[in-house]
């Protein structure tokens, strides 16, 4: 190790460079929200890119095709089927049997990302229901900055409005391309299974 890094500074720079490389591989982006003359940094990943990469690289997928067998009961819940039977029929009528609707829930709860002293953020994450239910994976697609309440009259209402705006803009920014994919569909190559056209639909946000 001493041969590679002569000084502590070299090691520190290498760690930072490795961190940037991982950030690059994850496709992390950042943008700035300006709400009530205050700036909020929002770090996110392209939701469509995350979904497609997770879907195409998953070892086991359930496409809910007419010929699908062995689909776990936990994935074929009655509420999900009732909600998407119409969409499924409509999509297949327009695009053929190789098109399918893929629901996904979105969560942003009270989980707070590790606070290093300067930032405190809530994670925005999604889950793909079509993958193996035995190994559920959460995909983090954004970190919504916490909006603190200032002092003074009316600060509470102002903070509430700021939180709502930040949340809505954060969700739209992260899922901007997913909105298009839910309308026009997106092609996915599943290797041996061939090419499919997926329509991703947000079914639940909590």
């Amino acid at each position, binding site marked *: 190790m001493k041969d590679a890094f002569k000084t*502590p500074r070299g090691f520190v720079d290498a760690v930072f460079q490795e961190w940037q490389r991982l950030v690059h591989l994850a496709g992390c982006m*950042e943008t700035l929200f300006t709400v009530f003359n205050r700036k909020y940094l929002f*770090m*996110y990943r392209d939701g469509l890119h995350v979904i497609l990469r997770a879907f195409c690289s998953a070892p086991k997928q359930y496409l809910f095709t007419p010929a699908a067998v062995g689909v776990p009961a936990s994935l074929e819940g009655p509420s999900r089927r009732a909600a998407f039977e119409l969409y499924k029929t409509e999509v297949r009528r327009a695009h053929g049997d190789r098109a399918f609707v893929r629901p996904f829930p979105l969560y942003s709860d009270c989980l707070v990302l590790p606070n290093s002293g300067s930032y405190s953020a809530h994670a925005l994450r999604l889950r793909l229901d079509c993958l193996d239910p035995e190994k559920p994976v959460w995909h983090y697609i954004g970190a919504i900055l916490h909006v603190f309440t200032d002092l003074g009259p009316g600060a509470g209402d102002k903070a509430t409005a700021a939180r709502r705006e930040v949340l809505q803009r954060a969700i739209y920014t992260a899922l901007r391309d997913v909105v298009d994919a839910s309308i026009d569909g997106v092609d996915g190559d599943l290797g041996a299974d061939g090419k499919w056209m997926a329509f991703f639909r947000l079914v639940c946000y909590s």
Partner: protein
Amino acid sequence: MDMTVTYICRHCEREFSRVQLCLKHSRSSHAEVSPAYRTRVLCDGLTGPDQGFPETLVAGAAMGRRSSSASADVGGGAGGHQHAEGGMHGGCGRAAASGRADAVLGEDASRAVVGESGLLVAADGVPAQVEYAPRAAGTDNDVLMCAASDQDVAGGSIGSRVRTLLESFGDAARGKAMHGRSCFRSGNSNTPFLRQLLRDVVVSTCTGLSRTATADIYHLVTSTPLGDSVDPT
């Protein structure tokens, strides 16, 4: 029957509810395209400019703003049927007449005004080239499963208006990659041991540790003798 008018970017087929947003998108997302071809917009729903004046005509006239430069070298080779005057009008007259001033537009989008020649001009002074694709009478919106059933009087669905509002903030357009250029350089960590060490440090500490704390790790690791199980090669 009420009909939704959409403006489609000819470069990426992305749909917008207002022509200014489409022009703004073209300028930001397709900057590499020549200005002569950048402003190509397909207007889906109108038969031509005679069906309505562009909304920017009203807004631009009200503001009294004029663009000084309307490039003359624009418009060559455009496909489809363009307007006889050059195919450079665009917009939705119904939207302008119904007073959709509540839609917040970005700064760049609001700069799409009427030039000296009366043409719709984008923020960079390039006239917009709008093609028209009228729908047959009685046909519904051809966008599958996206339009809300309740159309408002302005002609756009609630979803499209919300999207227009959120799009006008320009958050996604301002988005940039978090990593710097240094991530593309090859580092000194060219052995499996060093790569694993770096990865462990990054994963375990992320950015929660300061540079001083990371330097302390260096001192700790280099002062600790390697065990027999570790292969430094």
